[in-house]
């Protein structure tokens, strides 16, 4: 089975409405808090998973139990009580009706230019909209399945394409990689799966946003993207709308595999609830993202990070194949009491491998923003090249910007360049803009957008426009 028919999609939508209609029933099915072998077995059973996947989860749990939470990141937070978290709960409607939606959230979405229909969809109140979008989504899915592209939720992929999932799951981020990756491997809720067949150029941006049966992004998201030989895909994750979630801890794992001559472009806009002005609440976002590049392949990460109270995230590339290319373009904004420790690892294993790292940090309020990067050149990686540019912009004199660049080079033929700047947003720049008729807010938006332009240019056009607005909103009243 290679994709959806319209009939199947309609069936699926029926199920979804059904779920919404019986929210209370589903809620009563929530697994009690705590993490144990029993809980992992229950999660797997509920998802009707094959034996090998249950074993995968159980092994991960055993590994995780032996690990301790890492402390090397430049962030301070109260560690979650892992026995006080519920690891499985059915999707739940966030709001009963449109009237219940937080007015502040509505206002933000208005500013972002999100249509009313979309707003309703995002807050989970619109059944109408889902119905409206059936035709759009159907033609979208039809087009993809004609090309043999698989794009579905992770759970569906486990049922429909177990051989593909089994072949690639955990091959880029092994279970024992780190504390949160191990946790995710044991209890991952759902996520996305994408497979592009040999030689196929995916004709449209694949966006989680369009996936019709998405049941909330989930706490322990698992994403697997496989681009077979000579294929191309551009994948978008997240959206600019503010995302609130009752779950404080988010630990996602994303694995990308670019086989020979393939290219994957992976773009993220992350706008999880950052906590309030006093630093209360907010999401802990501990993400492991990594891509494996085979011969002549290319993986490009672009991220715009504005949300979450604590971010811990290093989208990386293993440049295993000769002539492979890894890229990382990042904008990370922190405001109020947010903390971000983000960057990348470029592991050069193959010959003539190339990597580019452009990181733009913006700190405001009392926030702390760190870049942490590793460029590693293995012994056999002849003629490896890296260019790293790492800029920090400070909006106030109470925030912090830090850089932790690591370089490990075991081959003398490598060429490595590292450039870094730190600057405070200029009062002179703001005044100059104001004297030309721009309000202070507009001026800051313009200056900041100029500063991050190199990175935003890497985003798909529509996403870039939204990201620009998002940056302006994230930095409102932030100069001081």
């Amino acid at each position: 089975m290679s994709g959806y028919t319209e009939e199947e999609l309609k069936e699926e939508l029926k199920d979804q409405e059904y779920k919404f209609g019986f929210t209370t029933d589903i809620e009563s099915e929530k697994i009690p808090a705590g993490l144990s072998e029993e809980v992992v077995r229950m999660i797997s059973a509920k998802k009707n998973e094959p034996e090998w996947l249950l074993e995968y989860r159980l092994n991960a749990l055993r590994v995780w139990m032996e690990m301790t939470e890492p402390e090397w990141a430049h962030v301070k937070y109260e560690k979650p009580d892992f026995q006080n978290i519920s690891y499985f709960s059915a999707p739940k409607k966030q709001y009963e009706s449109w009237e219940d939606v937080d007015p502040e959230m509505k206002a933000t979405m208005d500013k972002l230019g999100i249509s009313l229909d979309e707003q309703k969809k995002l807050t989970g109140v619109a059944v109408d909209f889902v119905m409206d979008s059936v035709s759009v989504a159907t033609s979208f899915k039809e087009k993809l399945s004609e090309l043999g592209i698989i794009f579905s939720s992770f759970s569906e992929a486990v049922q429909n394409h177990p051989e593909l999932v089994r072949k690639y799951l955990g091959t880029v981020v092994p279970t024992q990689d780190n504390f949160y990756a191990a946790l995710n491997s044991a209890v991952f809720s759902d996520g996305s799966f994408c497979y592009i067949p040999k030689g196929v150029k995916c004709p449209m941006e694949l966006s989680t946003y369009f996936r019709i049966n998405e049941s909330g992004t989930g706490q322990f998201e698992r994403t697997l993207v496989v681009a077979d030989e000579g294929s191309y895909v551009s994948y978008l994750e997240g959206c600019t709308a503010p995302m609130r979630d009752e779950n404080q801890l988010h630990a996602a794992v994303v694995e990308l595999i670019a086989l020979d001559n393939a290219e994957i472009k992976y773009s993220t806009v992350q706008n999880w609830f950052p906590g309030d002005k006093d630093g209360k609440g907010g999401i802990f976002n501990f993400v492991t993202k990594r891509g494996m590049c085979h011969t002549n392949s290319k993986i490009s990460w672009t991220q715009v990070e504005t949300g979450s109270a604590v971010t811990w995230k290093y989208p990386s590339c293993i440049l295993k194949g000769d002539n492979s290319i890894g890229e990382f373009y990042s904008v990370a904004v922190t405001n109020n009491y947010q903390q971000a420790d983000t960057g990348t690892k470029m592991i050069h294993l193959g010959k003539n491998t190339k990597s580019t790292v452009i990181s733009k940090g913006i700190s405001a309020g009392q926030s702390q923003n760190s870049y942490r990067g590793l460029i590693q050149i293995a012994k056999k990686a002849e003629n490896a090249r890296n260019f790293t540019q790492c800029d920090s912009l400070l909006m106030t004199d109470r925030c912090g910007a830090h850089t932790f660049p690591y370089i490990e080079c075991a081959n003398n033929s490598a060429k490595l360049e590292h450039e870094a700047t730190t600057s405070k947003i200029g009062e002179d720049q703001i005044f100059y803009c104001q004297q030309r008729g721009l309000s202070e807010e507009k001026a800051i938006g313009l200056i900041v957008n100029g500063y991050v332009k190199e990175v935003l240019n890497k985003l798909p056009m529509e996403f870039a426009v939204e990201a620009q607005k998002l940056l302006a909103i994230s930095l409102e009243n932030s100069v001081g």
Partner: protein
Amino acid sequence: MGKTLLDIKNLHAEIEDEGKAILKGLNLKVNAGEVHAIMGPNGAGKSTLASVVAGKDGYEVTEGAIEMEGKDLLDLDPDERAKEGLFLAFQYPVEIPGVSNINFLRTSLNEIKEYRKEEPISAKDFMALVREKSALVELDAKLASRSVNEGFSGGEKKRNEIFQMAMLEPKVAILDETDSGLDIDALRIVAAGVNKLKNENNAVILITHYQRLLDYIVPDFVHVLADGKIVKTGDKSLALELEEKGYDWLTDVKTL
């Protein structure tokens, strides 16, 4: 005589936090159609005057008023003053990396239009305007698409200021030492641009050290600013007299 565009009355201003008085009772009335030159020794408060009128942070007005067409500017934010038709050509134009000159000006122009409840300018009309106005100051078309002032030579920056002035068509333009750092050819070009822009409905205030600029832009009035006040006002001949005698003969009287 045209109507009064800018009226500065008994202006006292000091540097915030330091409490150091810079302007000490300055009066200046500028009418439509007029060109005023403000000259004076270093440290007299010329650039402070420009900054205070434009509303730059860091100064406190302790007494007096600044009115534009009867409207109190001191109540307005810098961007609102600009939208009311005040333009300041900066002595040191600021660089804004990553923001193209074109994008900057279009945002600026449309903000001003919105304030005046006018329709935003179309891309086509805007580009036509850019071509017309950049020719006025012989600004290389390539500079229009480059980042604001980034990598511009000193002369290009100053020409860019006048180009912006041409685009925004202010009622009152203050040119803060626009002539400094210009060679004679660039000075001629800039001056020719200003001359083409001035008309019976607007006014220009030239802040300068040198009478050289006034050979090209002929002022109706020349004021001498010393120790925070205008100590003498005359016509163009005053500038020549200053060139010859310096400022001491004016300031000494005071200090004695």
